[in-house]
């Protein structure tokens, strides 16, 4: 499994890397621009990410705009809905604050910080990435 961790906070990023690297190959980005670029390169090279853990409040371009761009890239590449990258939003903001219809369709799971190992594992099970 290929995983992209988009998280600007060092401690959270390190934690997610430690947990998720047990389940797949992880790359890390620290802002919205890097995230979309990493995603585009992986998609273009035919080796796309299966899972994206995405923070919202990130430097430069926020996670909401980054996710919109990522979905547009998939759409341009004609990636089927069933094959598109699974997205876990991990944010300090509550889901009700960002839960507008246009955005809700773009991610699969939402977790509010702080997250623990169980949160991540359960989210991956929800996405059927783990049995």
């Amino acid at each position, binding site marked *: 499994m290929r995983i992209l961790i988009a998280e600007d906070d060092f401690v959270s990023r390190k934690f997610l890397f430690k947990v998720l690297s047990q389940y797949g190959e992880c790359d890390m980005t620290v*802002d919205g621009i890097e995230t979309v670029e990493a995603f585009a390169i992986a998609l273009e090279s035919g080796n796309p990410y299966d899972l994206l853990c995405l923070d919202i409040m990130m430097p430069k371009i926020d996670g909401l705009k980054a996710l919109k761009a990522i979905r547009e890239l998939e759409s341009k590449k004609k990636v089927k809905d069933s094959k598109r990258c699974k997205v876990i939003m991990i944010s300090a903001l509550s889901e009700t604050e960002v839960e507008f219809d246009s955005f809700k369709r773009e991610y699969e799971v939402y977790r509010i910080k702080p997250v623990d190992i169980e949160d991540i594992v359960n989210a991956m099970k929800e996405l059927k990435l783990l049995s």
Partner: protein
Amino acid sequence: MIKGFPTRKDSIILAAIEIISESGIQGLSTKKIAEKQGISESILYKHFNKLDDVLVAVIEYFSQFDSMIANTVIEKDISCKDKILEYIKSFVELYEAYPALACIILNYDVLMHYDHTHQMIIDIINNRLGFINKVIKMGQEKGEISNYYTSQELTDIVKGIIFTVTLRWKMAGYTFQLKDRILLTIKKVLENS
């Protein structure tokens, strides 16, 4: 480089933030933004009528999550002290990862002298400090926070810590952990006031 991402408008805002961080508000000009972006000034004017409009967009960008953070934190089932720390953490965590953005805090006074941003800055300061003041008051009523200082005095102390530590962080070339330093100091103040 991905076509259309970030949008030209967003790129201009990000370039303006970088210039403000490097040269101050006085150093910001449409010429400098255009140079940094590798575009002509006429392209910049397609997105913003004048430099003041860029500044307005920068301030909107700077404060875009403010109400979401306040609403999230106030709903959390944690002590008032922790609410204050969570609230401040949400901001300083972003500044630590994006030091250029913290320059806005250090330029509040200058931004208040521009007609277009004057009221925006006052609203941001009032909303942010108003939230902290409100939660301190709640904490004092519940006996979680001492009444030695009034809520307003304690809010001013917290504000002073954030501003001073952020300035010191910039002066030190961003070489220490901003978030840890600010949160630890405020925690001590809230616990020992």
